[in-house]
């Protein structure tokens, strides 16, 4: 049992948790605790230090889009993204609910609204109170400052006026052609100018102080405000749900239309006279059409972030498979034939370093040439272009590794094949490919990592729904939350990339026969 778990951890590349399992099994506890402290404790401490540094540094850098978000803000942004996703899903479900389930949901929603409304009202009252108090406080603080400011300006103005007048008076008496006297006067004027500048600067600084007083934040009020906002948002969401459970509900709409249809059919049955009958028939058909349309309709769910993640993962796999389907056969051919290797090496070397940013527009135009109407196409051209770009950028490591693996089959294994007189295909499938498999999978693992990095850029450019598009939308919409949401993306992209890499490690380990150790 223990060894099975240890083996599984080993295959999954999670040897980090090895000492935990051993500790639970009671194997040499001091040694295991030491290992746990080293391999789990130290990384956790590092992460905490990282969060600490981040928390300290972030508020100290203010940008046009607000302060750099702290971990707490990022966390709440992530929560916001998730809540939005859950709520949209709930609305989509509500739209399709019918019968008792709909009734039950309706009751629940109404109960919740009844519960929330007083809370929201109370929060509103409290917020208004606090707001008023805060305003009063700020005014109280700012009023003397304002006075002071006015005073300051007045004194400065008066002083300057007086000085100027004195200087003019002095100038009146300046002897002509007395260079020394005139120079002295010039210096006085310069000093006067300097003083004026200094006064202006002092006023500006003072004004900034007053402005700072006005923008003072009151944590208590902010807390109440965010609480109130939360209530308001939920109430808004609940009222939308209410709509989808009542007036906009699919089953209710269909029921309504059906009653109308019955009436129309009755009219049609009893209609007399050519014109009237024809008109009634047309009405019935139109109604039937309307019913079909409603029952086919779906709640138009927006692309929430979790769905975009899923879409991105799907896209990277599509691209990865296209790339693999090209790279592995080509690599085998290159590995087997030195002529092909020589022929393709320059092309590989030439195309390998090309950036996805260059590939994407080209691919986009070519794909666009094949798909004239994006709405009717089975796959969206933006999705396909992103996938092909991923394929183009990620196939190189697989190609090179496959060629290398196939070309470097051990000579003894080749001799075995010769002694057994294996044919071309059994030689390929029984000797060459199995022995190249570990290298091929090492290549695939690098390819998937490259593909994932490329994909985000490709999506950003092609506006294919996915993580890249999310980042781009956030960058462009510029709300107070976007900065934090982009930070969420950083962690999501990292986590998904890590997960993909782990999957590839498991695959790689399962095909490697020499028990090669895996990289971190």
């Amino acid at each position, binding site marked *: 049992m223990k060894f099975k778990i240890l083996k599984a951890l080993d295959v999954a590349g999670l040897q980090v948790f090895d000492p935990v399992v051993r500790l639970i099994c009671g194997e040499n506890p001091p040694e295991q605790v030491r290992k746990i402290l080293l391999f789990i404790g130290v990384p956790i401490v590092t992460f905490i230090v990282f969060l600490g540094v981040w928390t300290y540094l972030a508020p100290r850098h203010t940008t046009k889009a607000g302060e750099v978000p702290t971990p707490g803000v990022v966390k709440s942004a992530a929560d916001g993204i998730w809540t939005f996703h859950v709520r949209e899903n709930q609305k989509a479900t509500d739209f399709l609910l019918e019968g008792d389930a709909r009734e039950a949901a309706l009751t629940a929603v109404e109960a919740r609204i009844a519960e929330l409304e007083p809370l929201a009202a109370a929060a509103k009252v409290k917020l208004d109170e606090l707001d008023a108090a805060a305003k009063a406080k700020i005014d109280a603080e700012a009023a003397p400052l304002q006075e002071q400011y006015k005073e300051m300006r007045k004194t400065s103005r008066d002083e300057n006026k007086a000085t100027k007048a004195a200087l003019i008076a002095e100038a009146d008496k300046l002897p002509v052609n007395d260079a020394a006297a005139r120079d002295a006067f010039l210096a006085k004027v310069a000093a006067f100018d300097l003083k004026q500048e200094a006064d202006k600067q002092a006023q500006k600084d003072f004004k900034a102080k007053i402005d700072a007083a006005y923008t003072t934040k009151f944590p208590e009020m902010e807390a109440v405000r965010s609480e109130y906002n939360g209530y308001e948002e939920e109430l808004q969401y609940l009222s939308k749900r209410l709509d989808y459970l009542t007036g906009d509900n699919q089953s209710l709409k269909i029921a309504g239309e059906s009653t109308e249809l019955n009436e129309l059919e009755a009219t049609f049955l009893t209609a007399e006279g050519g014109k009237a009958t024809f008109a009634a028939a047309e009405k019935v058909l139109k109604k039937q059409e309307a019913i079909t349309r409603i029952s086919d309709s779906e709640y138009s769910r927006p692309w929430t972030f979790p769905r975009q993640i899923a879409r991105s993962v799907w896209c990277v796999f599509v691209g990865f498979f296209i790339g693999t389907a090209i790279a592995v056969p080509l690599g085998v051919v290159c590995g087997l034939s030195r002529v092909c290797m020589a022929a393709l090496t320059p092309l590989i070397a030439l195309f390998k370093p090309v950036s996805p940013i260059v590939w994407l527009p080209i691919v986009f135009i070519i794909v666009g040439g094949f798909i004239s109407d994006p709405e009717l196409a089975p796959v969206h051209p933006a999705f396909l272009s992103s996938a092909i770009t991923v394929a183009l950028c990620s196939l190189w490591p697989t190609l090179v590794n496959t060629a290398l693996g196939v070309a470097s089959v051990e000579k003894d294994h080749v*001799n*075995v094949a*010769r*002694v*057994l*007189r*294996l044919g071309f295909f059994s030689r390929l499938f029984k000797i060459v490919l*199995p*022995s190249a498999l570990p290298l091929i999978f090492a290549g695939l693992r690098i390819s998937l990592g490259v593909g994932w990095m490329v994909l985000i850029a490709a999506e950003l450019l092609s506006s294919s729904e996915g993580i890249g598009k999310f980042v781009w939308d956030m960058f462009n919409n510029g709300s107070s939350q976007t900065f934090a949401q982009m930070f969420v993306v950083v962690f999501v992209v990292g986590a998904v990339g890590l997960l993909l890499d782990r999957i590839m490690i498991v695959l790689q380990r399962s095909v490697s*026969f020499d028990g090669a150790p895996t990289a971190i």
Partner: protein
Amino acid sequence: MAFLEMENVSVGFGPEGSRTEVLRDASLSVEENEFIAVVGFSGSGKSTLVSLLTGLLRPDSGVIKLKGKPVTKPGPHLGIVFQNYSLLPWLSVYGNIELAAKQVFPHYSKAQRKEHVERYIEMVSLTPARNKKPSELSGGMRQRVSLARTLSMQPEVLVMDEPLSALDALTRANLQDELVRIWEEDKRTVVMITNDVDEAVLLADRIVPLTMGPSATLASDFKVTLERPRDRTTLNTNPEFKKLRNEIIHFMTAMNKEAKMLRVDKGLAMPDIQPIDYSATKRSA
């Protein structure tokens, strides 16, 4: 005519001009079901000889004939046991042998093939390790698998390229006995390459020394007339064994000396420099 015959075979490597001749005018003839051991120093072209005998390498001149027909390409009738086993690491013991059996006896039914493979696993006493991968086996066990794989092809000639030289002494002794047992059980023509004279004397009917390379050739043979079964425990005191062994060793070492004498000394002349002992001066200072 002999079963396996090698007539005046020469082979060399390298480009024209700086060509190294590995074997020159080597001749050998092996009777059916005879056990021949070829002994030689390392680097004397033993592995080249194996490649020639199994058709993996074509000679530059001369001819190798099996039952009168020239050998031109490798095949399952010329079984070879490699020095480093060359098992396929992704296949189990069973899988490795089955691959060979499937290729050599394609007409076998599934049950027949299974029985065939298992018979050879049993022959090398590896039934308990049947589903293990080569990486999970010891060196001796791997060499047994390699042997079983080659035997399962039922070759007309079995050529072994230093099959036991990578093993430790105890495993080696063990496998030598095993080899004799298997050969007695399943008689066929065997050419074994080895660097161990004792091993050769213990196993073979005839021992052929390979002279020093380059341009090595096969010297005249020594017949081993010791009664079979030969018991390794009493063999050491057997005067006939001692005599034969000493003869061969003498022959080989003499050859080695001769080769060294012949070799032109290409080493740089070293200046005559002696370290100076400063410790005494230091002490006096």
